[in-house]
């Protein structure tokens, strides 16, 4: 995973709530077996059918910080939603509330999700709409967002922040505790089910 320390870019104001993962990337775009190349599916229905969809506007086409309404990423567990956003050039998503699995997936892939109060989301929307070139800096080291004369603090739990700052891979971290896993396995009841061998239904 790529490390995330700080990022500066412009904002795409997505004034929608409960943006579900089927909107971020529909099922027909999930058939690829690689981990990249999902940008063609990103918000494809809205990009195709709605001329004034925010990402269809040239002034927001290069945005790298997506600021969305509450409950972003509800629905499916598809990590493809995170990959599609990253393939589409986004490094940060800001919302007042995220769906759990989406938030989890983003930290694994190196996309930063930042929770801000809805009033701060509205302020960012207004700033980006007033001037789409507004440069916004999201700093995970100081846990602050700055644009113009505004500075907004945000919360990030220490462990996740450390992983992102260092770009650490979870599997490698867990492998350090293999002895604990083995000790746990030794105590599991023998009657717990096993998928192998296959038994006739």
């Amino acid at each position, binding site marked *: 995973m790529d490390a995330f320390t700080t990022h500066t870019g412009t904002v795409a104001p997505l004034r929608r*709530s409960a943006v579900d993962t089927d909107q971020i990337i529909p099922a027909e775009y999930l*058939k690829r077996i690689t981990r990249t190349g999902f940008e063609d599916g990103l918000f494809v*229905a809205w990009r195709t059918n709605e001329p004034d969809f925010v990402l269809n506007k040239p002034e927001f086409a290069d945005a790298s910080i997506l600021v969305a309404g509450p*409950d972003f990423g509800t629905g499916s*567990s598809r990590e493809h939603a995170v990959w599609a956003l990253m393939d589409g050039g986004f490094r940060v998503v800001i919302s007042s509330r995220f769906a759990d699995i989406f938030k989890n997936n983003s930290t694994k892939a190196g996309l930063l999700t930042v929770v801000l109060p809805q009033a701060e989301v509205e302020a960012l929307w207004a700033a980006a709409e007033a001037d789409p070139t507004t440069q916004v800096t999201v700093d995970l080291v100081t846990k602050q967002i700055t644009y113009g004369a505004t500075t907004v603090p945000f919360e990030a739990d220490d462990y996740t922040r450390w992983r992102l700052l260092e770009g650490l891979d979870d*599997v490698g971290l867990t492998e350090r505790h293999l002895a604990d896993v083995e000790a746990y396995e030794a105590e599991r009841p023998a009657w717990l089910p096993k*998928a192998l061998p296959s*038994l006739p239904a």
Partner: protein
Amino acid sequence: MPKTLAEKVYDAHVVRSTPGEPDLLYIDLHLVHEVTSPQAFDGLRAAGRTVRRPDLTMATEDHNVPTLDILAPIADPVSRAQVEALRRNAAEFGIRLAPMGDRDQGIVHVIGPQLGLTQPGMTIVCGDSHTSTHGAFGALAFGIGTSEVEHVLATQTLPQYRPKQMAVTVEGELAPGVSAKDVILAVIAQIGTNGAAGHVIEYRGSAIEALSMEARMTICNMSIEAGARAGLIAPDRTTFEFLRGRPHAPQGADWDAAVEYWSTLRTDEGATFDTEVVLDASTLTPFVTWGTNPGQGLPISERVPDPADMADEGERRAAEQALAYMGLTPGTPLTEIEVDTVFLGSCTNGRIEDLRVAAEMLRGKKIDPGTRMLVVPGSVGVKDQAEAEGLDRVFVEAGAEWRGAGCSMCLGMNPDQLKPGERSASTSNRNFQGRQGKGGRTHLVSPSVAAATALTGRLTAPADLIGA
């Protein structure tokens, strides 16, 4: 200290706990399907890792599989490549796979319980948000992303933060024609599509205890539609009887030891929940969705809501966007909405009991000539059972299409899709824009509302049919 059921299962699986870090949880069963796994296996290969516990891992093909001509090679080359990747990965890493045509094949959340692999007190994960289905057995079961799939394959564990606890208590008796689907749609309408974020929901109360395992699975299945990390129900005699004799259920002395343990899996007196929601079952009626998320639902006797009446600006905007997409006018009675397609199936309502309920209503009748009805059993096991009971003939004689097992029109990764502007009544779990096909419009319903709707061609309550 008194604990909730979910806390008991969680605590029993903590491999390692250190302040300031997530807990490391052991995973008892890892279910795998073709869509969310290829990149995880690639990750293993790239790092030179193996699957730590192939014996606790089971794979199936479900999302992409055609429901017609299932023994022919998949026509869509991209779908075929994904299924073939799973076959290669399963062979290379020594994982049991139920491929198309296999007697154990089916939707991942249908086959786990069917084989008896899903048992009380277990931790179960899958790269699929509806893994919450397995919570019906008193298991802690949740959906994960592909990076986490890779983590579980490599280590059989997952870093987790302790979830918050929510109780959804449903007391009283459901009226005839009102089902588990209506209960969960009513719950989601009440708490919202992400209202249970960060929580595990325990469903409890007399109405829940009275439900069959199939109905409990329907409820737990849609926990994710309320944003919950998982949903579960305390195991009881109904659970044990369902499991007894299934291929992977314990036997003999093991069975007794298991039942003894399973019987301890209930929320202790005095345990506290962070959030509590209470519903009176006797007030519930059949529910349908009118919008584009599962929280936008109403009793079927109501009318399409008017966004102008909504005080909250976000809610109003969402309703306006939903109605524009759905092609609906405020004030229209929901029962006047005409549908093109009825879909009976999915991991929410594709089990044998769901097919029985619908078949009973269709027996000896003909569906509306302008309406297409697709019946897709959740697994080959369900299909075989339904055919043994003659349900396939009931459906076909009524004018419905009887298909092979898979996810099918729940998400339209196979050829079963709505066309732009087409409208469905669907027993699945998501009415998101384009979920069942580009431009398709979905109304979520129970199996009995689906059958009633197929007969009339418009959204119909089972009770109205009897009166008609």
